[in-house]
């Protein structure tokens, strides 16, 4: 599903390149549940951003479902990730001005899905996550765990093949964190490929494979 070849990312500091990622080769198959681990500043989030097509690599090739992402124009790339990728963030990143319902609905609006269809899809997912009763509340009225639940619901609403999660439990207490990880595991069983960035060995244990990063390189 994902094929990274000799991916490097650097920023220029003065006249010297400062490498964030260096020479990464990585393949991820459909149905995997991968955890990316490593200390702060090792390039975990950068790698995730590149996989999520939010950022460009400075060098190297990236194939997603056999399409060469590095050769795509911005417009096509966003088409691609709109269709196949869902994002979950550590800080949830819900829109404060919108209700739970509206937050979940937003990605569908940007995919030009009809209103009646949207209603059905949002209703399904609210039901599945058991948050129907909260649909008219605003994010600030929810606990962190509930907010992250909404964030995941939003990421899944468009039925992505790949779920990218950047420290999804970082802001949650351990019980809430466990619930989220259980949910991930369940989703993975249903066929969703998941890549998560995490600090926690325990969370990494939920996955099928662990990739360790150190100073921008994959540790073997």
């Amino acid at each position, binding site marked *: 599903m994902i094929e990274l070849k000799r991916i490097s990312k650097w920023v220029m500091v003065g006249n010297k390149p400062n490498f964030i990622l260096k020479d990464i080769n990585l393949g991820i198959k459909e149905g995997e549940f991968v955890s990316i681990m490593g200390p702060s500043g090792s390039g975990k989030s950068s790698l995730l*951003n590149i996989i999520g097509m*939010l950022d460009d690599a400075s060098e190297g090739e990236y194939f997603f479902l056999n399409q060469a992402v590095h050769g795509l124009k911005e417009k096509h790339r*966003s088409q691609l990730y709109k269709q196949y990728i869902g994002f979950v963030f550590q800080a949830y*990143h819900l*829109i404060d001005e919108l209700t739970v319902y509206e937050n979940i609905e937003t990605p569908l609006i*940007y995919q030009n899905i009809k209103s009646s269809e949207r209603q059905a899809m949002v209703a399904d997912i609210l039901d599945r996550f058991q948050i129907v009763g909260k649909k008219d509340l605003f994010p600030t009225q929810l606990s962190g765990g509930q907010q992250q639940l909404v964030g995941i619901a939003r990421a899944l609403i468009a039925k992505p093949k790949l779920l990218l999660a950047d*420290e999804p439990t970082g802001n949650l207490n351990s019980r809430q964190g466990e619930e989220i990880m259980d949910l991930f595991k369940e989703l993975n069983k249903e066929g969703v490929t998941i890549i998560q960035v995490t600090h926690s060995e325990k969370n990494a244990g939920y996955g099928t494979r662990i990739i360790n990063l150190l100073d921008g390189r994959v540790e073997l």
Partner: protein
Amino acid sequence: MHPSSFTFAWRNIRKYPAFSLINLGGLAIGIAASFVLLVYSQREMSCDRQFRDHDRIARIGTDFFNMGGFAPSQPFLREFLRASCKDVQYATALMSGDLMSVRTQQQDRAYTAIRAYYIDSVFFKVFSYPVASGAVPQAGLAPGQTILMEDEARKFFGSQDPIGRTIYVAKENQPYQIVAVLKSSFQKSHLDPRLFLPLPATAIGKFDGNWSSASLYNYVKLTPQGSMAGLQRWLDRLREKVIYPTSGAIMSFAQWQASPKNVKFTIQPLADIYFHSNLNFELSPGGNLTQVKLLGAIGLFLILLAIINYVNLVTARSSVRSREIGIKKTFGASRVRLGRQMLLESLFFSLLAMGLAVVLIRGILFAYKWATGIPLTGPMSLTPMHYLWLLVFSLVVGMLAGVYPAIYLTAFKPILSIRSLAMQSGKGNGRVRNVLVIFQFMVAAGLVFSSFVIYAQWQFMQNKDKGLSTQGVLTINNLYTMGKRTAAFRQVVEQQAQVVSTSLCERAPASNDIVMYTYKTPAMSRPMTIPSFPVDARYIQTLGLHLTSGRNFDKDLVSDTNSLILNESAVAALGLFNPVGSTINGSERVIGVVKDFNYASFRQKIGPVVLRYSQTGCMLAVKISGGHVNAFLDQLNAKAKEFTGGEPLEINWLDDNFAKLAEKEKLLGEAITFFTALAILLATLGLIGLTLFTIERRTREIGIRKVLGANVDQILRLVSRDFIRLAVIAALVAFPISWWLMNRWLEDFAYRIHVGVGTFFLAGAVIVMIAWSVVSLLTIRAAMANPIHSLRTE
């Protein structure tokens, strides 16, 4: 040492340079523009009030033969006033001279177009002009003495002392010795003398019993006990006891009062002359009260806009400030203390803005003069006193701008503030801000709409079918210098290739000339006074009047010396059904009718006019075609020299005459456009600030939406939608109000436009376009930015 509030404010300014610049710039523009307008209005409103005891000074105008009233009156009225009017302390008569040439050496080149007033011995007892140097002679100017205004003295002599020097006035190089120089004043007056000369005794002459003359401007200063009513009673008695008996009429006083031979007087208090005098031969063009009020109101609006800008921008940044205030509160700062700090900050800000405003004021005055050709606040622009007022004004603005932020920002509970959750409790504040933005856009929309209407009316006046063709028509006004050689001169003019037609006449449309005759049909009981144009047979052709029935005058028909041509209004006014062929005044025959043509301001409806056949005239109207006008005029002047004895021709273009009539409207239009542009600029600055703030606040949201798949278009729409909604609401509120105001303004015009739906749409489109483009331009960068930057978790 702990930084003072000012240091703190200064650091705050430097920390957010773009934001501070917008805020400072907006405040400075507001202060500068509104200050200029307030100074302008104040100067206009206090015209002539600088003279000591101005409420005891009045002018007496006169009217006879129902000619419409004159600002000057009978030359010997002064003697009657002095002899028997108990209410009057001083009576003075002055004569307004033509524009003259002045030389400082007999052989020097002359300074031209200097306005001279001929004054009598008590002029300065009535009008208290401050003296700059020399002394005004107690007994008045002796023959050969003169007094100058400061500006003229500087122009003639530079920095040298002008007292005791001699100037040579007019063509004859009449010598006058300078005895005093008067201070130039910022204040406006309807009197605009540059040079005072002694009034010659011949100007008053001997009383000859002729009350149908008006050549001197008679001003009186009442005694401290005197009253205008007393003066009025004295004038009434004068009419009954002196004027009526000398008229020699065989009718009762009551009948005489109703007849055209009646002589009337008008008393004009000094302060009323500038705005309210509509008499003929006024000394200087009057002011327009509507315009002054309108511009004054715009001035107030502009400063309101600037204050709102400040309030909006400061409270918009409450999330930043609330953290600071919260921390200070936790350490025990009281609300009063924090409020005082906010106030001091806005005062500091307004002082900085004032510094900028001083530069801007000069810029605005310069730009206004450059754009309109007329200085807004007179030749002196500003005095040191004004800068003191500017300081006071700026401090007041600073106070007003600081009050709301001081109350609003210091009200946060410290815990909320520190966690910067103020945003949630700030919902109400957002509403206040929206109302303020709506208000700003309302003012801008109203002004845009008004300037469109005024411009359209002005255009309409320029393009309206005047019933005559003014293009290429000029009049030569000083035929009197040619004497009997006028006919020969006319032949020379007609020989020029560009000349289409010439006409000898005594009156041109839209000029200052007044000719009145009385007319009476057999059916009428009383004669009617109608403006008349004594003209020759080529007048209709030269001015392009339209003959609708009958025929033109014929110079070969002897009988035509008694012929009249009426305009359509005159036909109606005289009640003629078959005008051509009818007889008026017993022996005068109507031979033709012309379409109504404009000869006065568009504010008045075209009235009755009679063309009278006359073969002599004091001016020559010339119609030319083709280009090279300047070359033609040079050639004409060269040829004219031998006829005029060396004097240049006095030439007036008919187009200029009409332009002068529309000058007030043009000026108003230009002033409004100018300050509308500033208002839009202010509203735009406010919008820029708010948009920047909105973007800053919504960066995260924009990032999330982009990650969720929104494209740049959708983001732009999201952000600009709110602002456009505000602009539309503002326009909807502003248009009815300004429509009503503009209709009241248009009611003054007999010939006016009607404001169509198109104007609303156009003005609305302008406002919405401005809002949309400002917001879009600012948002596009945020919309294009990579969301990972805004979503980074720290």
